[in-house]
């Protein structure tokens, strides 16, 4: 016992008390940043052009809140939902054995990624010019009718005037969703390809069909690769709803702020208000993205694994109890 204590006492030398390395460069940088920050705050507080009270007064008005809820939030959610769904379909087409499906998927992504979103939205804002009515039914019905000697055959189920449907919100949604689908298709494709082919083989060997193995085995694993860029896409989409100004979509945050600014000749404060609104909204998304990534990282990585281990233990305890009964 005493010898053991003696050895540990001998084995542990006294703690190091060394003079740390100085970093004068860092201190200079901190000082410069402090001065710059002070200047910026001073600018915010003293410069009359910000007109803070006016801005705060206007930025929570009902039309602006409505624009925010419908044109920004609802538009982001709908465009992403359609974009992700269509993106998965296009990604699966892109990875298909059929060269025609592959080609069409390639053409789609090529087109929608090559045209800038702003230009695309301007085009979709005017696409109603192509048709006066949008109708659903048998395609080429009049031509088919002529083939069988029937004049002006019409096999249409229902339709809308394009002035009702292909303007404003719907046109903007179509533009954003179709463009998003192209980017999502690339993301999903990369995700699917990141999954070990052995996983597909194992699922096939068990007798799962193509759809089942995609849904149960490949996509859940691809999620880990798909989720982070999809989060970025959602944030980018939220910001890009401001481009709806060019469709134009009037029930939209930036459109409304811009309109107030132009009407009151207080353009700058309203643009600052726009910055603050978008900062607020994207910050919420960033928090959401953090939790999503944590969820889909399960079974992998260090923090995920530690958490899993905990969960595994409890499940194990439950499981073995069940077996023993």
């Amino acid at each position: 016992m005493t010898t053991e204590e003696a050895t540990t006492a001998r084995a542990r030398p006294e703690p190091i008390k060394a003079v740390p390395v100085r970093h004068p460069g860092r201190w200079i940088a901190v000082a410069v940043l402090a001065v710059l920050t002070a200047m910026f705050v001073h600018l915010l507080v003293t410069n009359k052009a910000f007109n803070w009270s006016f801005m705060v007064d206007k930025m929570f008005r009902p039309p602006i809140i409505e624009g925010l809820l419908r044109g920004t939030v609802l538009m982001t959610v709908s465009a992403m939902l359609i974009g992700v769904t269509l993106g998965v379909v296009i990604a699966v087409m892109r990875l298909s054995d059929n060269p025609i499906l592959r080609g069409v998927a390639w053409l789609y992504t090529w087109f929608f990624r090559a045209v800038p979103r702003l230009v695309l939205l301007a085009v979709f804002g005017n696409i109603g010019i192509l048709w006066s009515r949008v109708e659903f039914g048998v395609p080429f019905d009049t031509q088919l009718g002529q083939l069988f000697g029937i004049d002006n055959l019409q096999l249409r189920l229902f339709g809308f005037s394009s002035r009702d449907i292909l303007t404003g919100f719907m046109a903007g949604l179509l533009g954003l969703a179709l463009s998003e689908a192209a980017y999502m298709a690339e993301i999903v494709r990369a995700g699917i390809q990141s999954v070990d082919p052995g996983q597909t083989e194992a699922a096939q060997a068990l007798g799962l069909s193509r759809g089942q193995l995609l849904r149960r085995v490949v996509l859940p694993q691809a999620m880990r690769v798909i989720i982070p860029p999809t989060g970025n896409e959602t944030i980018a989409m939220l910001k890009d709803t401001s481009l709806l100004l060019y469709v134009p979509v009037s029930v939209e945050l930036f459109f409304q702020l811009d309109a107030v600014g132009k009407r009151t000749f207080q353009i700058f404060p309203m643009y600052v208000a726009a910055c603050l609104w978008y900062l607020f909204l994207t910050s919420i998304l960033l928090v959401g993205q953090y939790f999503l990534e944590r969820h889909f990282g399960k079974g992998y990585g260090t923090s995920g694994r530690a958490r899993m281990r905990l969960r595994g233990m409890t499940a194990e305890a439950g499981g073995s109890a069940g077996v023993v009964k």
Partner: protein
Amino acid sequence: MPTQATAPTAGSDLMVRAEQVHKSFGPLEVLKGIDLEVRAGEVCCLLGPSGSGKSTFLRCINHLEKIDAGRIWVDGDLIGYRERGGKLHEMRDREVAAQRRAIGMVFQRFNLFPHMTVLGNVTEAPLLLRQEKKAQARERAAELLERVGLGDKLGAYPGQLSGGQQQRVAIARALAMRPKLMLFDEPTSALDPELVGEVLDTMKDLARDGMTMIVVTHEIGFAREVGDHLVFMDGGVVVEQGDPREVIAAPKHERTQAFLAKVL
């Protein structure tokens, strides 16, 4: 050469019958006419040097690879095709999937589903494909995992298990579909030496219970002890086959001799 093949009649005890199986990857001909018969309850060991086409042949048996010529029957059913009016029709994805359900496969690299627990891995296919009740599937999975010595790991994720444990889960996963035939592709070659034994023991148990097995392996000891039949492949053809103990003790063909000299 078109073979005048007749399907083995039902009731015969042939579990697998392969006739003149050919397979090429582009210009590379990997299988150059494999004939093989495996009886029900038999353990057939496939040996051969790397690149001789063992994995490819195994994957042809459950149609993971499409063969270019020849025929494969499992339990009397032609794999991957339907013969109608003297013509072969390719099966649909769904029909192929249904055929695969009767054939279990174990891979060199386990290929467990990492996002599911051990229990999830084993119950996934039965729940999706056999319309088993959840409680029933879980009970059977627990039973199978108990049998492979992992009754205490139901809630673990594959990433938390050793290689040997993962491979035993993979075996339980395949067994959960109640297969008639099990294919093993070098099930122990990705394992640390001290873990090989536990997997081989599990396979021996399985063989003792009468499971029909085709095992690609470099474990000569296993082939000698458990194998009923040994097939030596090289360059895409069967070079020699017969009783494992006889072939290993006195290989007739020089390529078999050379190979055995290296691995023994």
